[in-house]
């Protein structure tokens, strides 16, 4: 069986970690061909070819792919679909935007956020904020899948598959890119970091969120947030961890001033060690944490930062 994997490119740079995790999942289904689509995607294609288990890389370079607008990228993927049994990608915002569109163009269902491959037609995926795991069997001719990256290990470096240039598909010309507001940070990326420190509504203000930042920097960690912290303007949207935010599974997750609503737990309960700091001893977060500290975060967090 042949698998087409849509690599994630941001401004023409390969998102190596999530793509390599999707390769691990995809390898179980057959030979993996990676598609690198961008304005200038040759370098990203080379990087993808270096992932172990990648049989071949297709590179499509055209200005219409520069910002990964859904309509042109989906049209390209759909035009290639005939040669593949499975079309897959890591379950990032990029792929969640594009792959359901591809599936509809092919008249097949999408399998979102798949966490395990049972066989070529059968997959596991979490539903109901991760409170239920469904095993589903697809009767579609082509399976279109996004893989939850946090549940797969990244494929190693060491591939040397060939890179083949393909031409662009027709541009549906329905939308145009205006601007990106991307925060640049020296911190590790949230979904690949070994340690994540997250703050919730309990932090109380944007200024005080620097307490979380200082602890994270001491640990070389990424920073996350609850929805309440994002909604209140304490933290940017791309820090949100949860059912409808990012899913993380680091070695250590420290939740500060977060109550532990199911929607938040959905994004972090597969972390190896969970630490919770909360002033309310009854907070549900303590039911999933390995180490719980009932304390005022304004005292505990600076102290923790100092002692580590």
């Amino acid at each position: 069986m042949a698998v087409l994997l849509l690599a994630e490119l941001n401004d023409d740079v390969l998102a190596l970690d999530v793509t390599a995790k999707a390769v691990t999942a995809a390898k179980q289904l057959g030979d993996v061909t990676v598609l690198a689509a961008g304005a200038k995607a040759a370098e990203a294609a080379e990087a993808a070819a270096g992932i172990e288990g990648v049989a071949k890389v297709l590179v499509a370079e055209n200005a219409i792919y520069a910002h990964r607008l859904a309509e042109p990228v989906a049209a390209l993927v759909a035009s290639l679909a005939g040669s593949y049994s499975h079309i897959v990608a890591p379950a990032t915002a990029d792929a969640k935007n594009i792959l359901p569109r591809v599936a509809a163009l092919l008249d097949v269902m999408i399998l979102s956020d798949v966490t395990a491959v049972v066989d070529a037609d059968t997959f596991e995926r979490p539903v109901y904020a991760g409170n239920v795991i469904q095993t589903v069997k697809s009767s579609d001719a082509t399976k279109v899948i996004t893989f939850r990256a946090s549940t797969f290990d990244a494929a190693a470096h060491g591939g040397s598959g060939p890179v083949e240039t393909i031409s662009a598909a027709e541009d549906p010309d329905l939308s145009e890119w205006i601007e990106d507001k991307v925060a640049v940070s020296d911190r590790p990326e949230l979904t690949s970091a070994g340690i994540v420190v997250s703050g919730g509504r309990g932090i109380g203000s944007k200024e005080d969120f620097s307490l979380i930042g200082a602890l994270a920097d001491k640990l070389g960690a990424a920073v996350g947030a609850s929805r309440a912290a994002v909604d209140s303007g304490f933290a940017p949207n791309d820090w949100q961890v949860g059912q409808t935010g990012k899913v993380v599974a680091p070695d250590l997750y420290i939740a500060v001033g977060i109550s532990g609503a199911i929607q938040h737990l959905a994004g972090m309960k597969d972390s190896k060690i969970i630490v919770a700091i909360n002033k309310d001893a009854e907070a549900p977060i303590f039911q999933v944490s390995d180490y719980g500290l009932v304390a005022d975060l304004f005292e505990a967090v600076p102290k923790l930062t100092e002692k580590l």
Partner: protein
Amino acid sequence: MKVLVPVKRVIDYNVKARVKADGSGVDLANVKMSMNPFDEIAMEEAVRLKERGKADEVVAVSIGVKQAQETLRTALAMGADRAILVEAADDVHQDIEPLAVAKILARVAQEERPGLIIAGKQAIDNDMNATGQMLSALLGWSQATFAGELDVDGDSATVTREVDGGLQTIRVKMPAVVTADLRLNEPRYASLPNIMKAKKKPLDEKTAADYGVDVSPRLTVVKATEPPVRQAGEMVPDVDALVAKLKEKGVV
């Protein structure tokens, strides 16, 4: 301009889903059901467009069991002008897949000719995050998912999208399909007088067959299980004890 808003009846977000004893799915009998939270946001946005004079009619559509009428009444109480119920299932446990929902919505859109469709980003039961994208593909319209800001100006709309790296702003040609993310707005509560008024607003009843759409699922649920529960660990008395534990585990 007419705005179409698809709203789904789902398990209330405060209720923890439980798997049925036979492992066939989630037990939804006697469980509190509500409008999908993202659809409340979508509905709010549509009503605000009307209040700002950018839309002249807001139509809510729900696909599923007869009980979805209640969800549509909520939409009407929030400010929708009329509603369409497309009955496609008679068992509350039968979920209509995004592809079938999108096909029905595409047919509704061909009849209603809205300038804009605002859906939710994700249904909190199946967690698919797919219907808006599929609908947009079937109609051949532009798509703007995960909208945190929406500005409609004539024959185009400017949408700021919540993406993994931060925010992306795009301009889409109308008609368009937009999906609402959490920060788009804060939905209003329907007032009692508006709930009363909603009872008199028109609610059309159709079936999937009226639209000629086959809703049989492409994915069969082989089984549903609850994931292993994480056991609560220990409480530590102070920061020093916490640091000691983390050092012992070798994670810091």
